[in-house]
């Protein structure tokens, strides 16, 4: 019996889809059987980020309305032989095509076959959000170090606390710009965590590579050299129960010389 994790944020554009894709990828890399579910009906993106758009035959609404079986709609990601699947959202219907009760049933069915179901939630707090949360056991709230994103995250945490089936949500702070945080131009990690008062499960630095990789349909988590990739892999390990220290945000491209200086305590 698997576990369903919903990735949500309230505000749009903070990186829900990217986070879902990368957490799913990282979990699959750890050898888990993962199914990604895109609930953003009408504005599907997750398939594009995963590079699976061309292989979609059926979608979520087809499954709900009984036009096909679940396994027919699931798109297999060949890069992970049999570890990663995607259930794409419909592009032609809208969010009202699905009811929370139907989603719960669908997710419960998927939980029989997979270790982790990662549900990508649409922005907002209306029907689409309700559908996404309906079947979830755990929740990950994504925010960026901006006041407006944190405000919406606060709102969504309040709503998630009302859901009986969802455990207390975990926080991912995305798109951290180290230099701005250092100058105090951006909210810092501590400030955000104390404000939202939920557990932090990961921080991801702002990285151009993430956008580049998304555009190529390859989740950044596949690239072992990127900082953001490590961050997502760490989140996946924490989901699996490992305790991994938070990534150092300081720039580590200063080279050996500065490391030696640091070692001798020279500033």
């Amino acid at each position, binding site marked *: 019996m698997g576990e369903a994790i919903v990735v949500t944020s309230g505000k749009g554009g903070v990186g829900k889809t990217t986070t879902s894709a990368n957490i799913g990828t990282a979990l699959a890399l750890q050898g888990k059987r993962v199914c990604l579910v895109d609930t953003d009906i009408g504005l599907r993106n997750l398939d594009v980020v995963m590079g699976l758009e061309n292989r979609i035959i059926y979608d979520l609404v087809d499954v709900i309305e009984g036009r096909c079986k679940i396994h027919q709609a699931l798109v297999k990601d060949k890069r992970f032989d049999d570890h990663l699947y995607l259930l794409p959202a419909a592009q032609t219907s809208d969010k009202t095509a699905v009811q929370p009760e139907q989603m719960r049933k669908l997710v419960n069915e998927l939980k029989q076959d997979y270790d982790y179901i990662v549900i990508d939630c649409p922005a907002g707090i209306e029907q689409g959000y309700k559908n996404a949360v309906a079947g979830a056991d755990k929740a990950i709230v994504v925010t960026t170090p901006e006041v407006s994103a944190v*405000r*919406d995250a*606060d*709102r969504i*945490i*309040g*709503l998630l*606390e009302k859901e009986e089936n969802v455990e207390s949500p975990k926080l991912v702070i995305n798109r951290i710009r180290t230099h701005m945080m250092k100058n*105090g131009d951006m909210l810092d990690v501590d400030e955000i965590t104390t*404000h*939202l*008062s939920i557990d932090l499960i990961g921080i991801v630095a702002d990285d151009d590579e993430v956008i580049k990789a998304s555009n190529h349909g390859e989740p950044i988590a596949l690239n072992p050299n990127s900082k953001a990739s490590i961050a997502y892999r760490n989140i996946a390990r924490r989901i699996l129960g490992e305790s991994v220290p938070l990534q150092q945000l300081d720039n580590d491209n200063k080279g050996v010389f500065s490391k030696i200086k640091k070692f001798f305590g020279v500033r």
Partner: protein
Amino acid sequence: MKKSQNVTIKGTKDGLTLHLDDTCSYDELKKELDRKLSNSTRVQEEQQLLSVKVKVGNRYLTKAQEEELKDLIRQKRNLIVEDLETNVITRQEAERLRQETEIVPVAKVIRSGQVLEITGDLLLIGDVNPGGTVKATGNIFIMGALKGVAHAGTEGNNEAVIAASVMKPSQLRISDCINRAPDHVPEDDNRVMECAYISDNQQIVVDRLQVLMKKRPSLTRFEGGL
């Protein structure tokens, strides 16, 4: 043995008091009151208005009956009912009274979009985040940071106060007064252990917590628990 009279008038140094017996029937009482007040011509001779207190003992009066008795007494030209005192209240009234004076502890973070409404005093163990609202008919005490909106004395209690460990509200309301945060707050401004109350010129004032013991001594309650 029949009691001689159901209505007695007593003069004290505070004024007149009407004692109404609580064992006779209401109609009987009304009749006798009417008779008695019409008889006492002595009172009517004085020109100035006389205020009387009415004590009805262990009798329960409905609102309508209360009004009826007051009217009856008021008709006697220079008598005005100042206060009507009864030893009995209904369960609902008692419950309401208990709630109004009770301190309600809540351990929770009030997040954006959430509203917490309390009858009585609120003791919040947690924060009020921006966009969140707490309301209480009495006082509000917040052990965490107040960054949202707090409204004390919602039913018109001007004596109500708001106290918080960290006072950075977006808006403060006490009774009908509203006070909002300045548009630009210096970053390093640490507002710890502060309180808000309505000052003599009907403005909400934010001050150190310690001034409350002078401004609102009634906050201290020494009633032993049961």
